[in-house]
C-alpha cells in the first residue's frame, strides 16, 4: 500500500520537481517497491501525454538528416560485436603487447649489458692495478739494473796512480781513470816539467801480456798541468800498468824505456 506521502514524492519525481537528494532517496525506495514502480510508470504516462498536449510544431525537415548523420558514425563503432575477434580492435592491443615484450627484452638486454660493462670495468680496473704493479716492478728492476750497471761500471773502472821516476821532478803526480768496458780513459797530471818543442810526452797502457800500447801524446802547459782523454790504438783486455815516456815530437810506436818519466798501476 502506497501512502499519500509516497504518492506526493512519486508525483514530484515524474515532474522532475524533487531536489537531488530527494530524487536519489526516492529512486532507492522505488527500486525496493514494485508497487511504487507501477505508480511511477502510470504517472510517467500521464506526464508523457501532458507533454504532448502542447501545440504541434514540426522540426525543420533537414534536421532529420543531421540527426541520423550524428548516429551513423556511432553506429559503426557501436555495432561491432564485442565477443567476436576483430583485427581492428585487436591490433592496438597486439601492438601494445609487442611493445611491452620489446621493452622487456630491451630492458633485459640493457641489464645484461650493464652487468657486462660493470664486470669488464672491474676487470679493466684490476688490469690497471696489475699494470701499475708491473710498472712499479719494472721501475724497481730498472733501478736495480741501473744500480747493477753502475756497480758493474765501477767494477770496470780502474784508477791508477802514476809516480815520478825522475829525480829532478819528484813532485810530479798523475792519475789515470780507465774504463775497461768502454776502452777509454782520462789522464790527469801536475807538475810535469816542460819539454823542448821537438819532444812530446807519450802515454802507454801495458796490457796483461806486458805489451805497451800507445794511448796518445801530449804536451804540458807552462804550469806543468795536463788533462787528456785517451783511447788506446787496440783492444786492451786488462790494463796492467800505465806509463808515460818522453819521446820525439809526435810520439813513437814503441816506448823508449830509458826516457820513462811516470809509471803506476
Amino acid at each position, binding site marked *: 500500500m502506497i501512502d499519500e506521502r509516497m504518492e506526493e514524492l512519486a508525483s514530484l519525481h515524474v515532474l522532475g520537481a524533487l531536489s537531488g537528494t530527494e530524487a536519489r532517496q526516492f529512486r532507492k525506495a522505488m527500486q525496493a517497491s514494485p508497487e511504487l514502480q507501477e505508480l511511477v510508470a502510470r504517472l510517467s504516462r500521464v506526464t508523457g501525454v501532458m507533454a504532448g498536449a502542447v501545440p504541434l510544431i514540426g522540426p525543420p525537415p533537414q534536421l532529420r538528416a543531421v540527426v541520423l548523420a550524428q548516429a551513423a558514425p*556511432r553506429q559503426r563503432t557501436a555495432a561491432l560485436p564485442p565477443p567476436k575477434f576483430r583485427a581492428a580492435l585487436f591490433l592496438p592491443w597486439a601492438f601494445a603487447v609487442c611493445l611491452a615484450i620489446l621493452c622487456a627484452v630491451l630492458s633485459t638486454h640493457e641489464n645484461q649489458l650493464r652487468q657486462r660493462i660493470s664486470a669488464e670495468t672491474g676487470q679493466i680496473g684490476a688490469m690497471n692495478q696489475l699494470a701499475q704493479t708491473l710498472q712499479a716492478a719494472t721501475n724497481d728492476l730498472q733501478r736495480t739494473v741501473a744500480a747493477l750497471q753502475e756497480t758493474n761500471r765501477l767494477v770496470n773502472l780502474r784508477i791508477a796512480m802514476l809516480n815520478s821516476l825522475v829525480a829532478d821532478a819528484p813532485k810530479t803526480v798523475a792519475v789515470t781513470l780507465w774504463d775497461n768496458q768502454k776502452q777509454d780513459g782520462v789522464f790527469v797530471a801536475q807538475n810535469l816539467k816542460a819539454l823542448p818543442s821537438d819532444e812530446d810526452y807519450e802515454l802507454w797502457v801495458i796490457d796483461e801480456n806486458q805489451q805497451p800500447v800507445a794511448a796518445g801524446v801530449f804536451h804540458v802547459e807552462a804550469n806543468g798541468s795536463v788533462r787528456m782523454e785517451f783511447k788506446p790504438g787496440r783492444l786492451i783486455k786488462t790494463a796492467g800498468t800505465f806509463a808515460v815516456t818522453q819521446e820525439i815530437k809526435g810520439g813513437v810506436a814503441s816506448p823508449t824505456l830509458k826516457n820513462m818519466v811516470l809509471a803506476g798501476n
Partner: protein
Amino acid sequence: MNLSAQFDFVRWLTALDEIRPGKSSFLIQPVKDQETRNQDIELLQRVGARDLSAFAEFYDKYASLLFSIASRILHDASEAEDVLQETFVQIWEKADSFDPKLGTASSWAATLARNRSIDRIRASQRRARLQNEAGVENATIAEDGETANSALYGLEKAKLIQSALVQLPAEQRQPIEMAFFSGLTQHEISEKLGEPLGTIKARIRRGLLQLRDKLGDLL
C-alpha cells in the same frame, strides 16, 4: 466469458476497427495502445542494438512530439533544434537502458527532451525570466488546435487527452505545468504561487492522480 471467448471478442473488435479506419472504438483502443507500446519497446530495443533504420523510424514517429516540447519550454526554435539533436543522440546511446516497467517509450523520450530543455534553461541566464513568466503566463496546454499528441495518437485520442487536461482544476494544473514545463522545484512553485509547500505537493499529487484516473486505459 472465458479467456478464449474474450480473445475472439477483442479480435473481432480489432478487425471491425480496421474495416472502419478513423472511427476507432473506445473498446478496442486499449488493445491498439498496448500494441503500440509493444511496437515502441521493440523499436527501442532495435535502436539499442544500433539499428539505424529503427532509429530513423523512431525519429519519424517522435521528432514532432519532442520538438514541440522543446519549443514550448525554450521559446526558441534554434535552441529547440539543438535540444532535439541532443535528445536523439541520447536516445541512440541509451535506448538499451530503457525500462518498459517505468513508462512508455513516448513518455521516456518526452522526459529526455523535457530534461534537456530544462537543463539548457538552467545553464543560461534566462532562468529567472522564465520563472517569472511561469507564474503569469497562460496555460501551457492548448485547449484547441492541433497538439503534438494528435500527431502521435491521432486526433480523436488527442482530443480526449486534451479534454482531460483542460478539465483539471487550474489550482492543480498550474503547479504541474510549472514543474514540468518550467523546471521549477516544489519550493520554487510554493514561493511563486504564495502557497504553503504542503498545499503545492497535495495539489500536484491530486492533479496527477486525477489525470491518471481520467485518462485510464488511454495510457
